[in-house]
């Protein structure tokens, strides 16, 4: 289902619609077919205008079996299209999904445009010339459904046919069968009179440029690579497989001809330590993980802070704690990123707001890391990492260069001397005359020698803190959507951007006095943020956690921020955020 969802997304991107996707799949690789827990879904919202969310509800639902219907029917708008593979509604499957009676015969589906399509039978019939075994033939039914969806929304088949050529070039039977199923689905829509409508969604009006469809994890990968490219350096990426971050590993390893060195480490700690070793050696080093891996990396991140070496640590957040909800999204690792290490251990933290924004965030993380000689954490999340959107591809010549200096005069070299950004020199092993020792023990200011001196420790703790605080000089001032003062400011961060923006706009369109402030820079925060916060009567902080940003804002700025929290492993719906905004504007708490 993820596969045909991706194909529909590609076709939708190519016709120029704006889009946002929400893949939703179980943690198990082969979850029991037909069970409620095993339902794999793919939601897409596309339009001729800009869209920021995958949609609270759907207008068309394709359910390939009773379990899929049961899990997703609540999300379908009344009056929406419900396309069912009626062949899958067998007594056994119904029972498996917990239906006592066949819902397709029931009142339950009144109010929807129900289309009962015998997809399995039609698919098997359509592909019979390909000579597949019955089981294999049946598997093509998702392509039948895709073809039908293509017809319904007037998408071209070319991109999918090209993809089938590439994917199954070596297995012509499978390729042919999927094409036959795809065309059969398309033609079924065209020739039956089951659908009285047929939609044409015009290209979205978006800024001019060259666009592509991009997934968050791919954008993160490209951002890391582009940063190394703009510095004329080589990227080193060490990682241990973990959902939902592994796709960064899979993407980067393809690009060895860019000199990218990818190291699948024996564990999370090793991945972090290898990144430190590579950074020490002069590479643009990065590691990627998710919350549990981040926990394991903690001690080594502390070492990176102490060694003051530049590197990027990507945390693709998922539902926690512990193993939690590996394939679902959450924003509950903010404290972990900002505060989650022993000792006073500050480092810059950035958060990406959308799939395409992962590129800019990863790129900026390296800019900061190198300029300030510090590890930088990039927070994305399962929703942003797996979701796709059209992305205006930057021209490489428009991206800033990243200056790197490894040359220092041996006569005056001191490993813990500071430049104007309080950064220490990135002196590389192998350089004549600069041999020095670094380590996790406290350093003497300037010389970098081991020091247990109380005053020096106090000084160094404050120095490391001041250095990270200085990053606020480099990052842009915080911007707002809406007025610069008013009744309510909604502050959000990370992957909730699209939803919160849509909710705020919805309320503003009705005349509500509400503005939106979306943070990318979680630590340090933009220098004008305090002023912004104090310009509004109330502050609402919607987060997919129990109020982590809210507590940071309250602590730092002494503002009476109110949390709006949800931890269901899925994004906010626009309507629920808009309702909460309305409630507060109407005097509620």
């Amino acid at each position: 289902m993820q596969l045909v969802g991706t194909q529909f997304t590609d076709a939708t991107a190519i016709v120029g619609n704006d889009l946002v996707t929400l893949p939703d799949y179980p943690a198990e690789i082969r979850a029991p077919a037909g069970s409620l827990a095993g339902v794999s879904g793919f939601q897409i919202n596309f339009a001729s205008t800009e869209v920021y969310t995958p949609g609270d509800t759907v207008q068309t639902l394709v359910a390939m079996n009773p379990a899929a219907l049961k899990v997703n029917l609540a999300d379908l708008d009344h009056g929406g299209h419900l396309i069912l593979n009626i062949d899958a509604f067998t007594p056994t499957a119904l029972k498996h999904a917990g239906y006592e009676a066949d819902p397709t015969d029931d009142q339950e589906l009144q109010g929807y445009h129900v289309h009962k399509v015998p997809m399995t039978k039609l698919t098997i019939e359509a592909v019979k010339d390909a000579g597949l075994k019955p089981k294999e033939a049946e598997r093509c039914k998702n392509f039948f459904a895709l073809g039908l969806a293509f017809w319904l929304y007037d998408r071209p088949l070319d991109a999918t046919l090209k993809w089938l050529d590439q994917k199954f070039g070596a297995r012509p039977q499978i390729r042919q069968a999927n094409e036959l199923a795809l065309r059969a689905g398309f033609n079924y829509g065209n020739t039956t009179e089951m659908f009285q409508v047929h939609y044409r969604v015009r290209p979205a009006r978006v800024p001019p440029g060259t666009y592509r469809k991009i997934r968050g994890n791919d954008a993160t990968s490209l951002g890391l690579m582009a940063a190394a490219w703009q510095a004329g350096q080589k990227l080193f990426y060490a990682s241990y497989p973990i959902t939902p971050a592994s796709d960064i590993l899979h993407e980067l390893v393809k690009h060895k001809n860019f000199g990218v060195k990818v190291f699948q480490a024996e564990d999370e700690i090793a991945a972090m330590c290898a990144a430190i070793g590579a950074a020490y050696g002069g590479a643009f080093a990065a590691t990627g993980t998710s919350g549990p891996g981040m926990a394991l990396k903690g001690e080594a991140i502390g070492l990176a802070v102490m060694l003051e070496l530049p590197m990027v640590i990507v945390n693709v957040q998922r539902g926690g704690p512990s193993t939690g909800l590996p394939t679902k999204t959450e924003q509950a690792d903010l404290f972990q990123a900002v505060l989650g290490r022993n000792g006073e251990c500050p480092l810059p933290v950035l958060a990406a707001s959308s799939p395409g924004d992962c590129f800019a965030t990863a790129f900026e993380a390296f800019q900061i890391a190198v300029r300030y000689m510090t590890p930088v954490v990039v927070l994305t999340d399962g929703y942003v990492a797996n979701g796709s959107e059209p992305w205006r591809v930057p021209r490489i010549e428009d991206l800033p260069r990243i200056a790197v200096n490894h040359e220092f005069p041996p006569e005056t070299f001191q490993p813990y001397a500071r430049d104007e950004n309080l950064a220490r020199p990135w002196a590389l092993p192998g350089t004549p005359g600069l041999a020095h020792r670094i380590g996790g023990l406290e350093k003497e200011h300037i010389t970098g020698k081991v020091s247990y001196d109380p005053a020096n420790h106090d000084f160094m703790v404050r120095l490391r803190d001041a250095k990270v605080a200085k990053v606020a000089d480099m990052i842009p001032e915080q911007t707002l959507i809406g007025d610069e003062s008013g009744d309510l400011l909604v502050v959000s961060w990370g992957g909730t951007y699209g939803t919160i923006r849509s909710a705020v706009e919805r309320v503003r369109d009705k005349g509500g006095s509400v503005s939106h402030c979306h943070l990318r820079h979680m630590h340090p925060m933009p220098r004008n943020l305090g002023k912004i916060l104090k310009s509004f009567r109330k502050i609402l902080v919607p987060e997919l956690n129990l109020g982590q940003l809210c507590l940071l804002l309250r602590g730092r700025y002494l503002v009476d921020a109110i949390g709006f929290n949800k931890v269901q492993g899925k994004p906010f719906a626009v309507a629920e955020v808009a309702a909460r905004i309305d409630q507060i504007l109407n005097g509620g708490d």
Partner: protein
Amino acid sequence: MAATTSAPTVSLQPKDYGSSQEIRWCPGCGNYSILTQLKKVCSNLGKDPDKLVFVSGIGCSSRLPYYMGTYGVHSIHGRAPALATGLRLARPDLEIWVITGDGDGLSIGGNHLLHAFRRNLNIKIIMFNNRIYGLTKGQVSPTSEMNKKTISTPYGSIGAMINPCSVAIGCEATFVARTVDMIPAHLQKTLERAAAHRGVAFVEVYQNCNIFNDGAFKYSTDREIREDHVVELEHGKALIFGKDQTKGLRIGRNYCPEVVTLGENGMSIYDLLIHDERASSPALAFLLSRLRHPDYPEPIGVFRAVKSPIYNDLIEEQIRRLTQERGAPDMQKLMYGPETWEVN
């Protein structure tokens, strides 16, 4: 790539490899001897101090990088091999030595050691084995013997001991050796062999902690008795030991090693085991690593020295091959991805 077997490039005295940092090991610690021999080896081999990096974890042994005038990283507990791996992959030109101890390397950092061995990274790993936790003041270590009474095992240790060389050979490390802090000539020779090896080189050094585990290796250091308790491994030579060089090792029934006396029961040198450090199978090396005092003499010297593909060479080779196949990289093209569309 700088081969570790290259001819001397600089002419420096051992002291030139030291740093100005005050050495803080306890007086009488075996580490002093290791540090001295290490500097001698660097001098003998004409190592360029600017190309050397010593990476360590945590523990008494792991302070060593501070005392070398080379590049060095004193990292976190157990993770030196992991940090060294990243450095090695990023920098094929450097010579990297990992300094670890029995607790650092085999307890908290066991996993990293295992993978450094199996990957055959081109790094040297020197493990100072004193069979005790020194820096944390005397707790039992994974190489401590059973029933050992320590501050954390007042009624005797109940965990079986792990044998560092057996672990390394079990992981098919391509160079595995053992030496003793108090036999300087042997220590020096062994470190030189390790330095010359391309691939992972593991050296276990019996190291005396005179504060918390004094005399743990007395049988191997005491001049009066050591020849009866230690057998020196030499490639192609029979395993003979003893003060009078009259004892030998042979393989008995069921592949069990036996100590025999030459001249008794018709035993001659031709009955003895001949050491073969170059055998591609690690079986013989493993069998030798299992010989334990007091039942057997403990082997010192090189158990295994074989050639095998090196992880960091292979990654460079893949990059070279793919760059050749695909031509010069084009970042813009990569960013455009498989499909783009224009909006005007």
